[in-house]
């Protein structure tokens, strides 16, 4: 049941991403709801196989909604999921700030990779300019979004019940 809720959330966010994201741009910066969801979900959920697959689905849908080669975000989201769960798992009491910090750090990495992919495809824009005009504003946007998304994840998905091994 929890997994179904996760997938419903992912699908809804995908629909929001392909329909409303452009309306929510601030100074030309469009948020990536699926990325922020993946971060918050990772922090709340912890490292599980289902979580890993769900993050891969998020990545796939992000690729479909975005312009990156399909599969790029799948790998990235899985890596980010792993990082978030491994690092976030060490901070049991500060999951919200961790989500927000990851919102900035992971976004920076994701957007940098996006820049790199675009660079390799032949779109040559100054990296400094990209950081100032795109990457940093999006990071800031995602920090705020992570604040909201964290509560959404907590409310609709909730903490993952601990497994027997973890209980021990």
């Amino acid at each position, binding site marked *: 049941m929890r997994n179904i809720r996760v997938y419903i959330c992912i699908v809804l966010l995908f*629909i929001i991403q*392909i*329909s*409303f994201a452009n*309306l929510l741009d601030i100074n030309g910066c469009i948020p990536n709801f699926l990325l922020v969801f993946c971060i918050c979900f990772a922090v709340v959920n912890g*490292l*599980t*196989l289902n979580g*890993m*697959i769900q993050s*891969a689905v998020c*990545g796939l849908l992000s690729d*479909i909604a975005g312009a990156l*080669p*399909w*599969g*790029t975000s*799948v*790998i990235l989201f*899985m890596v980010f999921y792993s990082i978030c769960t491994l690092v976030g798992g060490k901070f049991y009491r500060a999951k919200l700030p961790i989500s927000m910090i990851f919102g900035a750090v992971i976004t920076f990495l994701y957007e940098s990779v996006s820049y790199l992919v675009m660079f390799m495809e032949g779109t040559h824009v100054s990296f400094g300019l990209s950081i100032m005009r795109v990457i940093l504003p999006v990071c800031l946007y995602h920090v705020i979004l992570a604040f909201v998304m964290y509560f959404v994840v907590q409310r609709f998905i909730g903490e993952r019940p601990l497994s027997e*091994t973890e209980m021990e």
Partner: protein
Amino acid sequence: MSFFSNRKNMLIIVLILVISIVSITIYAVPKNGTGFVTNAVNSMIMPIEKGISTCTNGVRGFFSFVSNAKYYKEANEKLTAQVNKYKMADRSEAEYQAENDRLKKLLDLKEKNSQYDTVGASVISRESTNWYNVFTIDKGSKDGIKVNDVVMASEGLVGHVKQVGLNWAKVVSIIDDTSSVGGYIERINEVAICEGDVSFAKDGKCKLTHISVGSQLSVGDMIKTSGLSDIYPRDIMIGTVEKIYTDASTSSKYAMITPVVDFSKIQEVLVIRTQQEDGGK
């Protein structure tokens, strides 16, 4: 770290990674057109995107319109003013061009009639109650214009001066029912009288009378001034025969003439100034 040491977990993760890498590789290989998978997936999500986009565009359009109403109003006013300005400029350009053409023709006419002392004038008003048969021009006695001076346009004969003021003059056109011009049918070498007629004048035409009984006059014949009258010099184009009538009671012929000058559009004219006080040429 037990998650990554689990063989099943690793197998699934590696599988996903491999699929992703293959996908990226396929993407990276240069190809013509769009790939099948990309095409299929985009085709599937396109109707969803389109439907949502229609709704969101409607909502966005409404709020955007409300929030930008003031801007739209200002922009609309600005653009309307700009369009009017351009229209005016465009019209002025066309008008200047037309005026230039008219004046050029008038100059040609003046050069052609260099034996006469002529002066150019502009039509400043028309007596509308008289179906444009009398015009007022902007030249008068101070320009040497006298009563009965002949008035021409670039196409041909207009009429003669009826009344003269200091800086204006009234011109009776050849279609006015008080007008009578000695005509000459060029093709058959015959003379006739070109008169104004109320019924013809309404259509901007005039009447050719005093045609000899056995005349070979036919439609399309050109009529010029005969020079036999006291006012009009010879060989000024009057018009062409449009229709020939026969009077049932007298068996005499008369014809409808279409003047070469369009009296409803005439704007510039050339006045031939008489040399003697008696006005004859």
